[in-house]
């Protein structure tokens, strides 16, 4: 096995493009190392990205948004008061990943690139309209987060593509987001269903909304119909019913050891209702 520690994303991109066999990037390593130890993934090339300058940073962008380095751990996100004030839903999604020990290493980009439909941090990023900056053989480009997952364990990234940063837009006024997942246990578990909602209010009326669901389809899904059910409403019962129906309609889960398709669909609707109330409360400045 070849192990590389490039000092720039351009070098990382080249190394990945030139490598033969199975290549994995290493950020926190909380998926890759576990897969290697269990023998399910045995890479021929490992490219460690953590030594590239800037990968540990959480910085404000000139437009008031955020740029999050690819090696920033969940623990650091959870310690960042300003980011939490802007995007509590994004941070609470990441903080649900793994244990305290795993939180010291696990990253948003790793959670995204692992390609799990149940990745807890991804619905929050999708609802937040976050994007990723990709350094590839042809240069740097920016892609919406929801376009990265392609199916369980698969992404749309091409050989030589390496994510070099996560970009979260400016939060703006009167807005809030939230994420919840369902697991049979309180922690150390994997989502059976998850839902993130980001919305903005104008007075009591929801003026913008994005709804994303996890673990109920081959990829995390943005659900425009669910957002439409919220926009223009005051989160009254009719809007909630429409939201729940739209979320359930967007579900296309599998039956497996973690839950039946019927259960996942049902609970996704329940979570959407609960998450919408939290996000709405946050948008209105009510303590949540």
């Amino acid at each position: 096995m070849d192990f590389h520690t490039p000092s720039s994303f351009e070098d990382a991109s080249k190394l990945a493009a030139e490598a033969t066999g199975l290549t994995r990037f290493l950020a926190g390593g909380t998926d890759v190392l576990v897969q290697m130890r269990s023998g399910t993934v045995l890479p021929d090339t490992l490219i460690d990205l953590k030594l590239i300058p800037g990968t540990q940073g959480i910085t404000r962008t000139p437009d008031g948004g955020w740029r999050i380095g690819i090696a920033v751990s969940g623990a650091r996100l959870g310690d960042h008061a300003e980011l939490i004030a802007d995007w509590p839903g994004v941070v609470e999604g990441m903080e649900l990943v793994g244990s305290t020990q795993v939180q010291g290493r696990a990253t948003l980009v790793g959670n995204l690139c692992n390609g799990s439909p149940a990745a807890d941090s991804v619905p929050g990023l999708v609802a937040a309209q976050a994007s990723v900056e990709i350094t590839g053989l042809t240069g740097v480009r920016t892609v919406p987060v929801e376009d990265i997952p392609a199916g369980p364990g698969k992404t749309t990234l091409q050989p030589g593509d390496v994510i070099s940063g996560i970009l979260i837009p400016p939060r703006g006024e009167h807005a809030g987001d939230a994420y919840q997942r369902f697991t049979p246990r309180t922690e150390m578990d994997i989502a059976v269903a998850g839902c993130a909602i980001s919305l903005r209010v104008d007075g009591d009326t929801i003026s913008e909304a994005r709804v994303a669901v996890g673990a109920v389809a081959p990829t995390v899904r943005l659900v425009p119909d669910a957002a439409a059910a919220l926009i223009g409403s005051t989160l009254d019962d009719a809007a909630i019913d429409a939201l729940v129906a739209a979320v359930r309609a967007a579900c296309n889960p599998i039956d497996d050891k973690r839950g039946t398709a019927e259960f996942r669909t049902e609970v996704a609707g329940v979570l959407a209702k609960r998450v919408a109330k939290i996000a709405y409360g946050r948008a209105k400045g009510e303590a949540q």
Partner: protein
Amino acid sequence: MPKDDIKEFRLVGTRPNRPDGLDKVTGRARYGADITAPGMLWGAVLRSPHAHAKILKIDTSKAEALSGVKAVVTRADFPTGLTGEEWNLQENTMAGEKALYDGHAIAAVAATSSLIAQEAVRLIKVDYEVLPHVTDVDDAIKPDAPVIREGAADASVPEGMPPNVVKYFEFGRGDMEAGFKDADLVMERSFKTEATHQGYIEPHACLGQLGADGKGEMWVCTQGQWFIRQMCSAVLGLNAAQLRVTPSEIGGGFGGKTTIFMEPLSLALSQKAGGRPVKIVMSRSEVLRATGPTASASMDVKIGMTKDGKLTAARAEFRMQGGAFPGAPVDMALYCSLAPYKIENVEHIGYDVLANRPKCAAYRAPGSPMGAFAVESLIDEMCRKLDLDPMEVRLKNAVREGDQASYGPTFGSIGLVEVLEATAKHPNLAVPLGPNQGRGVASGYWFNHNGETSVSMAISEDGTAQVSVGTPDIGGSRASIALMVAETLGIAYEDVRVNVVETGALGVNEPTHGSRATFATGKAATIAARAAIKEMCRRAANEWGIDEDAVEWVEGAAQPAGPNAGNYPPMSIKDIAKNMGATGGPISGHHESVPDGVGASFGCHVVDVEVDPETGLTKILRYLVVQDAGRAIHPSYVEGQYQGGAVQGIGWALNEEYVYGKDGRLQNPIFLDYRMPVASDLPMIDTMIVEVPNPGHPFGVRGVGETGITPPLPAIANAIQGATGLRMSHLPMTPTKVLAALKASQE
């Protein structure tokens, strides 16, 4: 032994620090995988990906050619001609003609590194002929089910039974027809429980060394070093006395480490590699796929009750699969299921059924939790139907000393009534319940066990004492034995060191199983200490020139047994020890027996739950364990056993299960998907120790390790019925199942 009249103890019943505490909190304690040896090789095991397959050919040539590989073994390297349970153990250690379950060992490799060993395993090519398989007990008992093994049934199985039934049990008493006729309510229900794993935190690990001369050593994480010695010797055709087995510290066992899995493989590899020691450490997936979970069960129960709550008759018919070998604990399940109740008319029928799953091992009160789930669930439902208090019904029918047990023998001293009375008075029962909340109660039973026991103790030159025991310390037994020996000798707890020793140091000891260590080893250690006292009294008598019967032992010193015996100042243990060389040499005490006087333990649990009606999630709000300990030698460890049993039962009830796919492969061989409870899932488990001393033990000990896992399964099901009105009859009661049942009940 006569019942000890001493009621007030100096040390027994106190809570000193555990002797192994510092080593464990500093990481210095040596567990199975911590053992290394010069020249050591690493072993790895190739396992079957198929649930049931004929092994046509195993090509190990590429593995053997890999640089660093020192030995490869298959079943061809094992002796032939074994029969009965020894054949079963050998077959489970390494597959012969067929792979019998997903994870069954096919070949093993020893190499100079773990990575090379794993790579070599991947280079072994096996040609399989995949056969039809069966994993569910109700499917396995069908007459046309795939046959796991021809001719595996023993003499108990009547002609004409389905081919996978290998043992049959039938016993009872009274007149069933008349009993049910006397009842005002007769109900019959079917129940299922799924296989669960003990989930000990330390995976199996061993280091084995075996020379061409047949002399061997093994360091291993086990509950019983003599069992390891006997089983490895049988499977490999060794002379047992030539194999010395040393147990490591143990990170949990719960019954699952009372047998062998990869231990003979390390010895076989070592011998083939010229006697170099071979270490094998299982991964968690190997532990889940290929060690010994408990059985799964399918059960029918029929009970008759009068309108004032008197049980008139009960019939239990249980079917269990314990994997591809005989040994599902269906007999134990039947014995325990009705044990808390005095019923005139009882009938028990049991089937031990083979299926394509790993060979089950003991798991904390083997069988009892399943039987309790069926019986205690049905009794609870009948109480609700007749509007009777479940505590009062349990008390009304409770067995007492002198009653004949449902499974035959007459109970000696038991404490069920005391347990139930204490439970009924506990403040948890008075806490008001809110919406979607329910309360459940259930009783549980375990026999407890004695077993072959050999203990030696010796007085040191400074008057302190060392005790050599053969039962590995899983639940604080070193502290408890030290307390009993110190109490007996009249010295400080800190002046006793208890060592768990290797097979060369003592006579045969059964493992730490059956809740026996504090009872059996504790009793033997106490008798050994009394033998040392007798010798010390003799030394004092010689010194004083008086008759040895005229010397008594009081507060750690020999003294004349009264004014007529002589007028000498007490001679302390320190004085006697200091002069031992001049007065006759070393002073020790020894005892070996299968200690009689086992005392059974009953318990009662009360649980409050809240069920989320939108997700089916069950939250444990509060949980109470009440159990008869006989005597709590070290109450903190007794409470720890109560809490641990309850938590394992909660996992079994709510989320834990072996999930097999249509392909017969285990779907959840990792802790992410094998859902044991985590700390944040649980409230602090409340405990109450009831002490009805066991007259068969010098300090009244019964044994407390196992009863506690028995009531949680039904107690939680009963609480869920209180919260939702639903009777859940198939474990685990996952959110998926509860929500589906809620939806169905609303339609």
